[in-house]
């Protein structure tokens, strides 16, 4: 893990140095369209659960500093013994503010409302612990729950077509079903290679 982190940092720094050699003008601008597909992981601290998602997103820069985006997370599984969810898919739509730099580095932060489609896999432990199960010992019903997300991350664009991205999302929400409400608060991390293209010509 440590080796991978070091390797990644070296890669980023060498790419940044490489950008320095080129003409110093902002790379990001209005008309940039980027998308990505990757696996992301999320930690739900209140339940002690780590979830894995297949993530896809698309983002369009409506001005030099602002982009709008939509992204979806398809729940794959939870890692470890705790498996609270039958599924926990989510979609979000929002915007990001980008700090313009004079190279290909693109740090940003943003906000996106969203919804999750979630169902609990088993009755929560409090139903059956201690003693026999009380009430309705069936899986939770499917519910659509509102979410709000704050995101922070960066893109590192190559000369054309591709970029590296890394992002952290804090997600807030609560799941309501036939059981007690479950917190959906989660910290999600994603990293990968994305694809980009300018759909508008540069203004002269």
């Amino acid at each position: 893990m440590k080796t991978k982190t070091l390797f990644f940092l070296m890669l980023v720094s060498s790419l940044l140095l490489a950008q320095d050699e080129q003409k110093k003008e902002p790379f990001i601008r209005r008309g940039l369209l980027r998308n990505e597909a990757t696996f992301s992981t999320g930690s739900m601290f209140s339940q002690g659960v780590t979830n894995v998602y297949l993530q896809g997103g698309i983002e369009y820069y409506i001005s030099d500093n602002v982009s709008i985006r939509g992204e979806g997370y398809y729940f794959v599984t939870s890692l470890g013994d705790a498996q609270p969810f039958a599924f926990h898919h989510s979609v979000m739509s929002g915007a990001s503010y980008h700090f313009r730099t004079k190279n290909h580095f693109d740090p940003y932060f943003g906000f996106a409302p969203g919804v999750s489609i979630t169902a609990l896999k088993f009755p929560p432990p409090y139903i059956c612990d201690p003693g026999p199960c009380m009430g309705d010992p069936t899986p939770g019903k499917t519910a659509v729950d509102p979410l709000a997300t704050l995101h922070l991350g960066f893109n590192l664009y190559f000369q054309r077509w591709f970029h590296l991205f890394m992002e952290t999302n804090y997600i807030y929400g609560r799941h309501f079903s036939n059981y007690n409400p479950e917190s959906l608060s989660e910290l999600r991390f994603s990293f990968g290679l994305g694809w980009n293209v300018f759909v508008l010509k540069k203004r002269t």
Partner: protein
Amino acid sequence: MKTKFLLAAALMPLFTVAQGGNNEPKDFESGKLQLGMRTVVSAFSDSKYSGFGLGGQFRLKLQNRLNTEWFADYITTNVDDYASRTDVHVGWAVQYYPFNYLMTKGSFIPYVEAGHCFDYTQIDLNTSNPLTYYSTLQSLSRWSSAVHMGLGSTYNISNNFDVSLAAMYMLHLGDDLHTEVVKGPSDIPTVELSKGHESLEGHLLITLSLNVYIGDLWGREKK
């Protein structure tokens, strides 16, 4: 009657401020259409439970200082862990800009808003909670209508994108839904759902929205 009076009193300042627009420049702002998403927090309701949700809206400007907003919200609320309440609002509002009104980068635009919506509310009991084992009803819903009024402000981060924060008081005109813990069979505490009589049930609605400029529908934009 009381509601009508309250509404008239609340709208009066809008009309008064509107009289001061004689030296207005030509209307170049009308026709501007925006589309947006928002996060909604419902607080200070009569039942004291706070809700959280999301929504969407589009805004269509009719004059320099006059904007309309058409919105839909979906809000969920936890009722003491034994029930959940879902509210859906579909409605519209008028926004009046007493000071600045130009949608340009860096502009800060405070506004007064008043509007109306239809709303659907449903309360579902959490059937695993012991308080609900002997409840007569598991779910209850109602349609009603609501009026709201409040203050907000918009900050234009770029010429085609803004962030708005608004706080509105929403007054529902219709039957109210209640949850109450009563003594059930053998004096076991039990939650009962009930529909109250026509009443004025209010709550504060705080919205944080992101709005993207889509276009000028009837082309009066200043070139």
